């Protein structure tokens, strides 16, 4: 376990560097929410999920949906590192003719399962995939990453009811709880607490973890797989902009890319 975690921590560092480099090159994009989800996606793609980058449409693959689609850079960094496409594509992020669109599009990027970016729609899509997998007697699981501002969308709660009503236990939602949204702290813009109670009341099994601690993430993902008859959500407490001191918990880095000077400073901290 220790060795595995060490390996994942190294991976996470590389992913952070890729995110910052591609965002700086693009000149726009969402930095803070990409950095807060690095450990979650690293744990999923480099440890938990059964998937095959050489066969992105493998029928038995586990599926990941980035419902908080604006954090596309973290997903692209991961998919590129996994080998879904050449990592040279990172430099074309958001550029005309690129495969890496500003927000994820499944028809353009190998490894992306559905379109996201308009918030609140990924859990419904995940439910649909999970129901289809169940109809086909597949063992594959579905993971949906939600933002904490995103759960202000009404459709999330429509979908939350659906997951519970249909006893969708082959789906695990994860909430990247970095507590910030574009306009400020979630608690000031539109409070979501008591969020654990809300999910419980909607019929979900809830696990709370530190979203930057690999041991806690991996344990929670294993635990979620064992919960039968109801959906599970992992509420992962995270820090927006995690890993770069001057970006951490700063609302200003929600939808802003680093400058060249900021990149240099950030890389010094990470390397």
């Amino acid at each position, binding site marked *: 376990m220790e060795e595995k975690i060490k390996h994942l921590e190294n991976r996470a560092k590389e992913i952070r560097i890729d995110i910052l480099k591609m965002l700086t090159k693009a000149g726009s994009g969402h930095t803070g929410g990409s950095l807060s989800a690095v450990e979650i996606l690293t744990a999923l793609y480099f440890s938990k999920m059964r998937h095959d980058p050489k066969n992105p449409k493998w*029928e038995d693959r586990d*599926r990941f949906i980035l419902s908080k689609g604006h954090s596309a850079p973290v997903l692209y960094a991961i998919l590129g590192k996994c080998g879904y496409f050449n990592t040279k594509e990172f430099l074309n992020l958001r550029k005309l003719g690129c495969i890496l669109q500003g927000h994820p*599009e*499944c*028809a353009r990027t190998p490894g992306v*399962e*559905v*379109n*996201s*970016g*308009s918030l*609140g*729609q990924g859990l*419904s*899509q*995940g*439910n*649909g*995939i*999970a*129901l*289809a*997998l169940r*109809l*086909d007697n597949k063992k594959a699981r579905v993971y949906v990453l939600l933002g904490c501002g995103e759960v202000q969308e*009404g*459709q999330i709660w*429509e*979908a939350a*009811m*659906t997951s519970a*009503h*249909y006893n969708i236990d082959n789906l695990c939602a994860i909430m990247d709880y970095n507590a910030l949204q574009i306009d400020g702290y979630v608690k000031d813009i539109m409070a979501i607490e008591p969020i654990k109670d809300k999910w419980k009341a909607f019929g979900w099994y809830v696990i709370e973890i530190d979203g930057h601690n690999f041991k806690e993430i991996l344990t929670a993902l294993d635990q979620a797989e064992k919960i039968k008859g109801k959906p599970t959500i992992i509420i992962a407490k995270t820090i927006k902009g995690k890993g770069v001191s001057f970006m951490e918990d700063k609302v200003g880095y929600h939808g802003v890319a680093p400058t060249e000077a900021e990149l240099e400073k950030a890389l010094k901290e990470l390397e």
Partner: protein
Amino acid sequence: MEKLGTRDVYGQTLIKLGAENKDIVVLDADLSSSTRTAKFREKFPDRFFNMGVAEQDLMATAAGLAAAGKIPFASTFAIFATGRAWEQIRQTICLSSFNVKIVASHGGITVGEDGATHHSTEDIGLMRIIPNMTVIVPADGYEAISALEAAAKYYGPVYMRLSREKFPVIYKEGIDFQIGKAKIHSQGTDATIIACGIMVSLALNAQKSLKQEGIHAGVINMSTIKPLDTKSIKNAAETTKAIVTAEEHSIIGGLGSAVAECLGEEEPVYIERMGIKDKFGVSGKSDELMKEYNLTQEDIIRAVKNVIAKKESHINHINRKKVFIKSY
């Protein structure tokens, strides 16, 4: 006169399609008895998902099912399918051409007594504007059956508008249906009526009356509004130089707009757009509403005469100009 509901045939056609293809799944939003998807649920309960009163979840869940290889038919009333869940249809279904069939009942004002909140007078426009979407409005029950079969075979998103009211039967069972191909009932010499849905049978009746008055109108059933059969429209415009469009939908955004766009670019001729004239519906019996909103056989006759009068006045104007230039 034999009548058959386009929504009534939907339930039985779903069962047939579902028996042929196990990947067909059906979703509804608490209106399964009205949309007739309940028939599918009785036969294939495991492949039916009632999503409750949650249309946005309905559409995005359908997208998820399609992402995993299913062929979802998602149904509710037309106004909720296309209005409430428009963005879900755009983002999760059409953007990547997912294989979802949105089959909505209660299109138009023939919904009747429920009133403006339940009348769907913008759905064709709302669906037509989204890239990758196919839009179909069958003219009778038998065309609806064939159109549903064609939609199931076609890969990609489809919006099909069905109705609460039973429509007079025009076709026979097994009528050929090709997506994007208009049905040309007759080629007139004086004007052409291009209609969809309930307006097709009214147009055919209007044509008979006009014939007795010596006016020869062509009738085209434009049951696929997107992709539009522009060749048929262009031919009709070249032949008759006068077009009437007739639809149970706003004159903005629907069939009338689509035909006007085509004519403007390809073959500019006079056009009269019959439909809901930028208004909301009101409560009433469906036949009362069709009168209230000027969507009767008599209104079609009037529109045909109007457009012919415009055309002739234009020709006279041109001729006068020619005489004037000559004499000058």
